């Protein structure tokens, strides 16, 4: 394995681990809420045993809350499953808009911890692309992770997809203004390695306060150099 693929694999593992930790945290929260509501039912049934009247509407409301949490967990696990299966195929047709919404959803909890929200903006005429889904997810995560640190005062990052003639551009807009001496080291080694593997170009435009990730319509399955 050459050094570039080593960097790519490490970035992929880091992304996968981070997402799994976040997902497991969310599932733990869901379990905690279900646990408290089950405990509340137990408390109320204990009261009923001691002839304290319990309103059936109250029980119905608790059951509804448990069902809401089961639904929430179902969505979380479905996303986890989609992420896990994204490594199944090396090259696949992908709707970049859908993938962007998926990544924004996966990153939502981590972003909200920093008080940041992502706003995906879809273009109706954005074409599907043929690419490596997991590498693209990893690349999108690297971009989202950076913009979480570099978000401007609005704390809202707009993520959009638009055709650029040869492929598509994914824009991350709403970054803070960096002074000349503050310019961050982005894109770094991992982003350059991923871009090479995806046949993509990545540019951090400090003046426009945005990142532009340009992807070809069809990824060339070539070994990145290095």
């Amino acid at each position, binding site marked *: 394995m050459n050094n570039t693929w080593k960097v790519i694999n490490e970035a992929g593992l880091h992304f996968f681990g981070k997402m799994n930790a976040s997902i497991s945290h969310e599932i733990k*929260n869901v379990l*905690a809420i279900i646990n408290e509501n089950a405990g509340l039912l137990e408390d109320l049934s204990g009261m009923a045993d001691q002839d304290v009247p319990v309103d059936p509407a109250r029980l119905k409301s608790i059951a509804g*809350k448990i069902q809401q949490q089961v639904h929430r967990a179902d969505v979380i696990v479905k996303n986890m499953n989609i992420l896990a299966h994204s490594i199944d195929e090396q090259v696949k047709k992908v709707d970049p808009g859908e993938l962007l919404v998926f990544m924004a959803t996966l990153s939502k909890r981590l972003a909200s911890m920093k008080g940041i929200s992502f706003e995906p903006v879809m273009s109706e005429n954005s074409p599907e692309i043929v690419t490596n889904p997991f590498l693209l997810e990893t690349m999108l995560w690297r971009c989202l992770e950076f913009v979480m640190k570099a978000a401007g005062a609005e704390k809202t990052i707009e993520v959009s997809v638009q055709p650029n003639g040869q492929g598509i551009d994914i824009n991350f807009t709403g970054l803070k203004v960096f002074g000349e001496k503050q310019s961050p080291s982005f894109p770094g080694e991992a982003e350059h390695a991923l871009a090479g593997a995806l046949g993509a170009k990545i540019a951090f435009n400090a003046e426009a306060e945005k990142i532009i990730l340009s992807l070809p319509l069809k990824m060339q399955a070539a070994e990145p150099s290095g």
Partner: protein
Amino acid sequence: MRVLLIDDEKELVSTLAERLSFRGIEADWVCSGKEALKKIEEKIYDVAVVDIKMPKIGGIQLKRMIADKYPDMKFIFMTGHGSEEDFRVGSEEAGEQFYLVKPVAIEELVKKMKQALDG
């Protein structure tokens, strides 16, 4: 015992507060560090049960912000995360026995609250 529950999961803290009331414990709840800071200004609490991971102001940061002003207030940390780093920091701040991983059994939580006050 006056308790403040702080967690960004509203359904968790509201239900927990109700269950504590059945056990004779007066518990208020809020869903952010910012709301907690306001609540603490309004009322004196003996124990704060705080989620470590919350948007903007996490549990550890909250404790560091108020510990000097309210030295008698005891802290119990809850987390769904359970990473080694969280455990290390949480244990350093509140003591290993006052670091709980969700889901938490209510009788265990009540026991920890009493221990915190006795200690």
